[in-house]
């Protein structure tokens, strides 16, 4: 390496919160013009580290130097002044303001010091958006009307509206389609060739290989490896560093192909459609089977699941459980017939974050523990305890507050809810989102075990290997239509990606 001083060095950074040591000695060195990837499981300290870098948290100890001189990042404004911009995973845009107003929020171009020059802001925003390859976004539109991907672009425009030397991106690709990811990478490339450094956080190793220069791995609040070459470090080595174990995706064993063909379908979907979301869909689900829906974001996967579940009302078609049609658009009818849903947004759609594990698990089964509305809390606790134990949820304490659990264990609590209810059909929407690699294998095993016990599972995931590894059969969706159905073993990732993008039906 050339002996020029790095753009940023952080050394020995520690940060404690009441009860947790979030950072326990982190070193990070970033050169100008490089893409520096930050890897680590959930809870490894990535978020805390970038908040320290953004000036949002003050470290307890450690040193930060910026362009060779020691600095204190005392506040977000101080970090921004130095040229450090952060794009958080949860977009921090204001939906009721326009694109331009969001981009220049807090540093509006003004006349006489306080009159906002709206037209100047609009012009500058339009230029930024053009530079980001999204000239089609109108600076005067309300941010709330934009898609998630477009909002991400606006966030990026906001970061670039400052003089940046270092830009931190926290899982920027999580909500994006492959095409949009390509555009994101092009932007990253443009930035680095201008000498801007990018700190890039992602769970997807293949992305890191594509655009990363060097990698720093965090584990339990420490940097366990710094400055590894992104392209040539073998995957198993990176995974081993992150987990301290040698785990790749481990999928449970599948029963032989066509094992369920003789069984009567428990769930039948006939010509189900919603205008603008998905074309008529037919599918059958047999007991013991895991069927995967593969497709891009926006291909209608989640919408199909939610319509089967009655959370959305279909325009046409019907859903039958054991041959009996369900009342369309009624969650209660679906739940009553034995369908359960683990929704995509766990915290927003499934969990009562102020409550205990037990309350969260029993919520769909309350009347079973009640006589004339009176809850028998002892039976309730015993039953939830058993369900929780059966899924080896940790801690296996039904009184624990759900918010203190990791993502994987929160997901298990959602599964326990339906296990307790004894449902026949389980709809899983992105079951491993926000679940770290180590815990995924365990979740896969639980899902397969539930299927082996006779449950029919419909799985949606944006991670193709997950669908291929876990499901028995796969339905490939493109723009709201099923373009291909096959045994999961006959497909591979490239074939699926071809199908979801090209959509050439071959069978």
């Amino acid at each position, binding site marked *: 390496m050339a002996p020029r001083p790095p753009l940023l060095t952080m050394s020995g950074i520690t940060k404690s919160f009441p009860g947790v040591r979030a950072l326990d000695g982190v070193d990070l060195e970033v050169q100008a013009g490089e893409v520096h990837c930050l890897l680590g499981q959930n809870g490894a300290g990535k978020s805390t580290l970038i908040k320290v870098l953004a000036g949002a948290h003050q470290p307890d100890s450690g040193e930060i130097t910026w362009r060779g001189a020691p600095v204190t990042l005392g506040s977000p404004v101080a970090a921004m002044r130095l040229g450090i911009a952060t794009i958080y995973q949860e977009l921090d845009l204001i939906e009721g303001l326009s694109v331009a107003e969001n981009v220049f929020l807090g540093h509006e171009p003004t006349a006489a010091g306080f009159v906002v020059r709206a037209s100047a802001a609009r012009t500058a925003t339009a230029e930024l958006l053009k530079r980001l390859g999204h000239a089609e976004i109108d600076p005067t539109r309300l941010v709330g009307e934009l898609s998630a991907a477009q909002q991400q672009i606006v966030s990026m425009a906001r970061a670039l509206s400052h003089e940046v030397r270092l830009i931190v991106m926290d899982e920027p690709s999580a909500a994006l389609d492959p095409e949009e990811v390509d555009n994101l990478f092009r932007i990253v490339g443009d930035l680095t060739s201008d000498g801007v450094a990018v700190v890039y956080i992602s769970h997807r190793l293949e992305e890191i290989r594509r655009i990363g220069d060097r990698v720093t791995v965090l584990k339990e609040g420490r940097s366990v490896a710094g400055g590894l070459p992104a392209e040539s470090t073998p995957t198993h080595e990176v995974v081993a560093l992150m987990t301290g174990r040698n785990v790749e995706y481990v999928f449970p064993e599948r029963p032989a192909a066509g094992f369920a063909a003789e069984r009567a379908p428990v769930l039948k979907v006939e010509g189900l459609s919603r205008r603008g979301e998905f074309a008529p869909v037919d599918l059958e689900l047999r007991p013991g089977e895991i069927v995967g829906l593969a497709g891009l974001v926006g291909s209608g996967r989640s919408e199909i699941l939610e319509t089967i*579940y009655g*959370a959305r009302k279909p325009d046409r078609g019907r859903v039958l459980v054991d041959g009996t049609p369900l009342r369309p658009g009624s*969650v*209660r009818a*679906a*739940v*009553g017939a034995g369908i359960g*849903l683990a*929704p995509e947004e766990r915290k*927003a*759609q*499934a*969990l*009562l*974050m*102020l*409550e*205990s594990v037990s*309350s969260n698990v029993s*919520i*769909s089964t*309350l*009347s079973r*523990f*009640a006589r004339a*509305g*009176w*809850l028998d*809390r002892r039976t309730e606790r015993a039953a939830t305890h058993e369900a929780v134990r059966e899924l080896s949820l*940790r*801690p*296996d*304490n039904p*009184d*624990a*507050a759900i918010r*203190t659990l990791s993502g994987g264990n929160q997901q298990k609590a959602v599964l326990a*809810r339906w296990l307790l209810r004894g449902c026949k059909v389980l709809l899983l929407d992105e079951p491993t989102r926000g679940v770290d690699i180590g815990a995924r294998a365990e979740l896969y095993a639980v899902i397969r075990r539930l299927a082996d016990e006779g449950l029919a599972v419909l799985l949606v995931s944006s991670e193709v290997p997950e669908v291929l590894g876990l499901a028995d059969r796969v339905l490939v969706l493109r723009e709201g239509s099923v373009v291909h159905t096959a045994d999961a073993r006959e497909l591979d990732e490239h074939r699926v990606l071809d199908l979801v993008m090209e959509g050439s039906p071959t069978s």
Partner: protein
Amino acid sequence: MTQPTTAAQKDAPTSAAKSVGEKPGSGPRWGGDVRTLSLLGVLAVLVAVGGITAPDEFLATSNLQLVLTQASVIGVVTVGMTFVITSGGIDLSVGAIVALASVWATTVATQEFGFAGILFTALIVGVGCGLVNGLLIAYGRMVPFIATLAMLASARGLALQITDGSTQIVSVESVLDLGARDSYILGVPPLVLIFAAVTLVGWLVLNRTTFGRRTVAVGGNAEAARLAGIDVRRQRLYLYLLSGLCCGIAAFMLIVLAGSGQNTNGNLYELDAIAAAIIGGTLLSGGRGTIIGSVLGVLVFTTITNIFALNNLETAVQQIAKGAIIVAAVLVQRRSPHGGT
């Protein structure tokens, strides 16, 4: 070599399980206790202040009976309000419903049916108003603030129209007897007993029934509750019915207390009830509610009013003190580990 290892292995999981088990489990409960204890502390301080500033009057049995009786009417309303707020809603119409129910139950026509007629009418009017609120909110998809604001205006208007501004004196003896001194049971006024009963039932329903659990679920995360198979709309409807029912009970209590029905009854009850629930520890955003906290909140407010009255201080000062208490209570809740996140 082997022995210490086994011992360590044996110990490790149990102690780990214990520490994980205790921390999250006891956390919220402890937080709730702190809040309840601090309110009890405030109440104790107030009693001491009352005892010192007006030693003869404040601690007299008759005064304590008066304080409790005054707390009873607003207390019953607050129990209903606590349920609504816990579910993430708000009921601005409680004061107006109390007024309407109290005048409707004391019209000449109603009084002909005696005790039962008055009681029944008060309850039915309360539940009826709650039904309208609930239907508008749950099935008409109106924002609770707006729907109950509309009810506030129209119920007050209707109350004025019924009475034409006059006080409707109650002539039914059995109703008046209930408010008389000689009907006290072991020194406790009947109205206080009604309040105690409503509190007890409210606590049981919120903490020990499926209805209570669903209320908390709807307030904590309505979308999650819906996707878990709870009929969120029906639950909301029931909650406003419940609040209306509490208003009906409170209206009957006011009739007993005043021996009359007036269209100005229950003025600003909505604000007192909301304030009492909030300082008690019920989250305005929903998802957590405490009946005990609400009742303590009511007692704190009523005691302040009483102390100020005994010391001949102006209402203005009293209002300022109430405002300060609300601010202080909410600030304390923010600081407590499980407050408002």
